[in-house]
């Protein structure tokens, strides 16, 4: 339990992704089986233990500790698991308990036996390990590590052992593997073959696109915001043959992979997370056989609803009948990876598209339609079509090479996304906060506002927050400006004179009940710093409200 508990603590305090990877790799290297497999399951959220209610833990501690002292401590610390782990009065005996032993005991204990087991373990373990135990028992690690990062660490660690195990392959096998993953670790450490997994229901690593700008402009040009509509059209014409490409709409939902076989049905997110439980209506409708790549949308009466409607359905464990009725889910298919049991991924896109059309008309699927192919002969014509994208719940266009086979990851030169132009607004900097990691000494996170009518004339109301889009030199200059124009300080946050205008770019504006302004921006970033523009000329809240798509 000690190495696992130390790993959790270090992960919590480590901001950098690379340092987290190193911590995970070192743990996988040192910890024995099956401990490391259980740790992996806990971090990746695959631990299948009956969760202990926090109230049970609370009850246990109140039997041991003066309730007044416990209450004062809990008020101070703010986290139940941490308070209990620190306040538990026993002096640990120093016997070492293995993580796998703890997991076995928790799994074997009945609901009525669990409290006594926890007390016994609390008495044996030092505070840091008590904390890990409570997190295990109550579920929910929250150590700032995604399942994807853990799998990346596995892949890199395997590389160090001389085993070629790309993270995409691990993700593909993942759903056929179970904790404590002994066969997986054997393979990754060079001590065994790749685990033999039935992949029919597994996640197929998704093929992703590059932004068209990244293909047409150099990194330096992009940094200097050199892209323009004219240059993009010219470079497209010069470098890519329109006849090599098919164009299709990029819809404003979430990319999913839906697979249905005789053995079951799954809906995976882009990262391979099974999200079927949030979309029982879709799972129910998947009476066809195959594997579809598409966009998950909320569609009412044939019309795609705004992204904010889809957001209401994401991440739910259970979905009410009202939710199902008000926000009906739908898949708009882009691609067919399996037609029944036939794997199509090795065939060119054009052939897969023909198969998709035939498959869909035969399947007569509910809640599924095809994303249309956009006909065009010349790039200029396509650019005109793209300009109309905003009105139609589309994020822009996808360009796919007709001869591209389907491979996981982001292969070069195959698929491009040509997003619609972002919306922009001029907003006034109101607050700045220091960043994290390398940016921890710089004011790099900015909250900005738009004008609205207040009781005493125009006032600024915050409309968004951004921490990207500027260059390193601009960051230095902003940092200096903020330090010289601070009007107030709240911990790590500074309020500044409302004098500096940002041109903010964003993909959309949504209605928000959580923000005072009533609006929320999607993917806001700083496009330009308008050192020249007087603050009173910045945009008004009404301008943003008009951008809300209904």
């Amino acid at each position, binding site marked *: 339990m000690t190495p696992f508990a130390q790993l959790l*603590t270090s992960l*919590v*305090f*480590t*901001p950098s992704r690379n340092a987290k990877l190193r911590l995970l790799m070192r743990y996988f290297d040192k910890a024995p089986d099956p401990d490391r497999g259980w740790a992996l399951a806990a971090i990746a959220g695959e631990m299948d233990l009956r969760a202990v209610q926090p109230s049970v833990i609370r009850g246990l501690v109140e039997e041991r*500790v*003066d309730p*007044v*002292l416990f209450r*004062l*401590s809990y008020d*101070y*610390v*703010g*986290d139940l698991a*941490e*308070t209990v782990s*620190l*306040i538990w*009065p026993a002096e640990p005996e120093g016997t070492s308990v293995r993580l796998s032993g703890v997991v076995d005991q928790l799994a074997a204990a009945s609901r009525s036996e669990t409290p006594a087991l926890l007390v016994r373990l609390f008495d044996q373990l030092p*505070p840091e390990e008590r904390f890990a135990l409570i997190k295990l028992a109550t579920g929910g690690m929250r150590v700032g590590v995604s399942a994807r990062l853990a799998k990346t660490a596995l892949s890199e660690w395997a590389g160090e052992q001389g085993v070629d195990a790309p993270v995409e392959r691990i993700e593909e096998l993942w759903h056929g593997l179970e904790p404590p993953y002994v066969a997986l670790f054997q393979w990754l450490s060079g001590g065994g073959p790749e685990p033999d997994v039935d992949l029919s229901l597994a996640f197929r690593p998704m093929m992703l696109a590059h932004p068209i700008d990244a293909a047409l402009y150099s990194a330096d040009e992009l940094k200097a915001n050199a892209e323009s509509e004219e240059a993009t059209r010219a470079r497209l014409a010069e470098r890519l043959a329109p006849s090599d490409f098919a164009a299709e709409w990029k819809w404003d939902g979430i990319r999913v992979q839906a697979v249905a076989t005789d053995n079951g049905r799954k809906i995976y997110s882009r990262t391979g997370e099974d999200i079927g439980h949030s979309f029982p209506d879709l799972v129910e409708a998947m009476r066809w056989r195959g594997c579809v790549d598409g966009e998950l949308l909320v569609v009412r009466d044939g019309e795609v609803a705004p992204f904010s409607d889809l957001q209401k359905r994401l991440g739910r464990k259970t979905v009410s009948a009202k939710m199902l009725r008000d926000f009906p889910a739908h898949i708009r298919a882009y691609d067919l990876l399996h037609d029944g049991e036939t794997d199509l991924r090795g065939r060119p896109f054009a052939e897969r598209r023909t198969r998709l059309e035939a498959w869909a008309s035969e399947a007569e699927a509910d809640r599924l339609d095809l994303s249309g192919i956009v006909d065009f002969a010349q790039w200029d014509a396509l650019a005109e079509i793209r300009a109309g994208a905003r009105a139609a719940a589309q994020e822009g266009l996808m360009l796919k090479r007709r001869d591209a086979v389907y491979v996981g990851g982001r292969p070069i030169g195959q698929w491009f996304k040509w997003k619609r132009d972002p919306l922009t607004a001029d907003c006034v900097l109101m607050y700045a906060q*220091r960043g*994290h990691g390398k940016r*921890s*000494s710089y004011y790099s996170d900015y909250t900005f506002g738009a004008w609205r009518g207040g009781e005493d004339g125009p006032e600024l109301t915050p409309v968004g927050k951004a921490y990207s889009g500027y260059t390193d030199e601009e960051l230095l200059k902003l940092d200096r400006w903020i330090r010289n124009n601070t009007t107030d300080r709240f*911990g*790590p946050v500074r309020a500044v004179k409302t004098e500096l205008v940002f041109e903010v770019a964003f993909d959309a504006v949504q209605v928000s009940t959580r923000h005072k302004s009533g609006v929320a921006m999607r993917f806001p970033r700083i496009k330009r710093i308008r050192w020249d523009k007087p603050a009173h000329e910045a945009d008004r809240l009404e301008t943003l409200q008009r951008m809300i798509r209904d």
Partner: protein
Amino acid sequence: MVNAKALLELNANGLFCPLGEFYVDPVRPVARAVVTHAHGDHCRPGHEALLGTPHTIEIARTRYGPNGFSKVKEIRYNGNIRLKGVKVRLIPAGHVLGSAQVVIEAKLGGKTVRAIVSGDYKRRFDPTCEPFEPMPCDLFVTEATFGLPVFRHPPTEKEVGKLLASLSAFPERAHAVGVYPLGKCQRLIAELRRAGWDAPIYLHGSLRKLTDLYQRLGVELGETRDATASAKAEMAGQVVLAPASALSDKWARRLPDPLICGASGWMTVRQRAKQRGVELPLIISDHADWDELRQTVEEVDPETLWVTHGAEEALVHWRRSQGYEAAALSIAGRSDEGDA
């Protein structure tokens, strides 16, 4: 009925001894101040007469200059002096170099009564100062910075070991520890030396004066260098000490890939440590933890316990539940979240 509570009262200037006509650690300038130690919230400039241990006086002069106080009087550990109607003695408190408890005795109604103001204190070993000396008394005034049962500081060696382990795991990163210029800075250096770390230790400019003073006063600290005068690459894999505020600000940019460490009792609580941007929390405190506070109160066994600055409520509750008199004293201006 004779009562030690007659020896001390609280007014707007702080704790006052009416029979001796002096204050202990007053928060405003007064005629005569006896101070427990030289931290800014206990020893402020401007008193007409300042009384304290020789080391405390020395440190106060270094911090506030020769004109900080009109008159000073040194009282050696365990040397008695008479102030009006009471006898005053200073005994070690184990907090920082020169720190003392103020022992006040008087004969009231034919019986000698004793009150002790402990100031800040800790009970574990500190290579830079004299250890706390418990003395039985009738009225004990204790601090309670870490007066909650969640605070149980682990052994110092274990925490220093964490820093050394990180230095060997990340030899390309400067390990920058946020410290207070008086006490924590020098104690951490001394603890590192005790653990065998003999490389030069790099200091922020504001730590220099008091570190030099500690060495002049006989505390062995080995070689220290000024971080601002050192090459960036030279500090990779080395220990750099600076005030916490400098580490979250521009000053830290001179360090190679700094790994920010904290060294205080607050590091026990994850969220507190994270809020301060700390990547490696070290629980090293100059204050008594919950167990030490209770142990101390039981050892000096006062009829009355007064609890100041910190989590007074819990310690008062605990003492009362044992059947003794206890009360919280709120003295304005004491830092709750400063160096600890």
